[in-house]
């Protein structure tokens, strides 16, 4: 009985470690996004900027900060968010040709306006 039990508890971990290597399940799956990619970094900075704006709004609404501090904080975070968008474009530009650079200028305008619209509609709370 002991021998059988010992074999069973030895075989199960062996199967568990061998299966992913034999079946190559992980390598067949699509590559996960790298947490250190430019996209992921920009996502974090974007979230951080939005959180900053949200925080400034909250502080203002509960009366913790003066009007001038609020405006300064909001401006700084808005600039950060805009910077993220700008960085996004620059990276994209590296990958594109001269023609795409022209279209990217148009894209800039659309991104700026979409950001403004989105910001106006956002329920920050």
């Amino acid at each position, binding site marked *: 009985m002991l021998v059988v039990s010992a074999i069973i508890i030895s075989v199960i*971990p062996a199967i568990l*470690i061998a*299966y992913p290597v034999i079946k190559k399940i992980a*390598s067949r799956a699509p590559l996960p996004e790298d947490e*250190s990619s430019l996209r992921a*970094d920009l996502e974090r900075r974007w979230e*951080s900027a939005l959180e900053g704006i949200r925080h*400034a709004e909250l502080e203002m609404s509960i009366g913790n900060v003066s009007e*001038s501090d609020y405006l300064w904080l909001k401006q700084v975070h808005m600039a950060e968010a805009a910077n993220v968008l700008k960085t996004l474009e620059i990276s994209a530009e590296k990958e594109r040709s001269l023609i795409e650079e022209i279209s990217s200028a148009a894209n800039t305008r659309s991104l700026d306006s979409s*950001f403004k619209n989105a910001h106006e509609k956002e329920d920050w709370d």
Partner: protein
Amino acid sequence: MVELGQIALILSFMMAGYSTIVGFAGGMLNGRDLAASARWGFYSISPLLLLATAALIYAFVINDFSVKYVAENSNIAMPKAYAWVAFYSGNAGSLLYISLAFSIMAGIAIRIVNSKLPYTSPYALGVMSMVLLFFLAVILFLANPLDQHQVPLEDGQGMNPLLIHFGMFIHPPFQMLGLISVALPFSIAIGALLAGRGGRDEWVDQGRLWGMVSWLLLTTGLLLGAWWAYTILGWGGYWAWDPVENSALMPWLAMTAFVHSIMVQKRRGMFRMWNMVLIIVSFAMAQMGMFINRGGPVPSVHSFAESTMGWVFLAVMAATLFISVAIFIFRYDTLKSRSGLDSIISRESAFLAQNVLFLLIALVTLWGTIFPIFSEAVDDTTMTIGQPFFNKVNGPLMLLLILLMGIGPVLPWRKAGWVSINKMLRLPFVVASLVLISSLISGITQYWVLISFVVCSVSITTVCQELIRGTRSRHSHGENWVLSFFSLIGANRPRYGGYIVHLSIVMLAIGITASSFYDVQKDVVMKPGDSEVLGKYTFKYIDVSEKTYSDRMEETAKFQVWSGDNYIGYMYPYRAVYPEFQIAATRGAIHSTILEDFYLVPSEFQEDGQAVFRVLINPLVLWMWAAGPVLILGTLISLSPNNRGHRKRVSLPSMDVDQSPLGRAK
């Protein structure tokens, strides 16, 4: 069953070794199948350790004294329910408990980390596996709880009598879990450094999550330890700056600094190096705790006295520290902050000042704890540092921290103008002034008490002000008051959860201040029928009853107690003598109210019927125990995910962007 447990232990050791090697290999070779294999190998460890644990507990339940550890830590008289406590009451069993608990927690952590940080995960797994490998190696080669005697004994030595207490079911598990759980954020941080992915705040969310989990466990363990000391050790106190207590406090201090500081990195991309340093220091201090606990050279009332393996822990601590610092230096260039301080008057600055204070207290505590080693090395005399040193040095630093705890959270990120500062801090300082005046009028003259009450009032007022202003703001948009209050907290959980935690810390501070400066103590010699008075309490010693058990002789005194004219009832302090252990365990009888505890504890029962009792009135101790659930609630609120799924989010526009890691070749 014991043999099966042994096999499970050997297999778990092999699996931990496999996960370490293959985890690192998977990370370095970018072999996703290897990493998956290492991960599944790691997942298989907890069921194996569960089997080994079941084997040990079963041996306790059936009184299998052929197992050495069972014979050393239980006997036939031990209630079966205490098989769980006996499991970790000794050195070897506690190592098995730590390994089991860590394998489960790390399994959960690595599953989450793998989905969030797929390229960091193999390295983090490698570090976690290495930590587990060390514990399993110690178990297998130095302290195996499943080792057997050639000839089974008829009865065991029994468990340390001081451990036969309800608190032992929860205090040690939390304390040990807290200490080892520091390895989780440490592994994630070092894993990120090894993967070359520590420089862009990739690991911050996971580091914060597991840092908070670890902090919660450490805090709960400390509070339960204080409560256990207060209720069972029978000296009327809850904290004695004992080396083992200090060894649990030091990583808590470092982790408290870390969970605050990591927020700055998340919000501002600052303190990247500092956070790495903090988590390395935290883990080193947790290891130091295990070293002191397991036969380290510093004398303590509740370390594993028989163990001499502390030096193994010290050697591993030194190696871990050396390797961590080497990795940190190797990746130093990638850890530069994204931005700098905009203003000295900002939340970031408050966090930094608070961090420095936490580390200062930790270092003072460390120095006081290990000072006997130095004194012995210098002139062969062991000088221990007592409570007055810690109270005098750490007390003021802690009060400064509580003041910062009141001011810091209301300062805005980046900078605050004087108008904003005035808006936020005017009321707290008005209230603090009123508290100071009313304290002086009511006769409080001890300046440490006055300072403590003043700084506590600043913290309480800022928290209340924040809650009231926030609720009022939401109420002005049409929500009713109750809904406004809860939706305010629900919508900003890390912020308001943190405030609740701060409230609990203030409750603790008030309890500690009041019970340290205004406790009243009296030793009385009484014979049955005698009455005595202490403060407003009158207590009458009725009689004493004796009961003899196979392992102990219990003497229980019976008292009638009045508070002024109000009859409270009977109180039963008792003292048990365990001849086998040559230990007398006393248990105080405590009458707790929100204002004070009336505490009766027997010191000695004499042949002539007289008995010596210590009687204490400890003010506001209940506030400290009540702070525990409040603290847990606040931390859980802080940790709970913000469900903003129902809201419209402003997402980063989807574009064709470079997906390869920054600074790396595609």
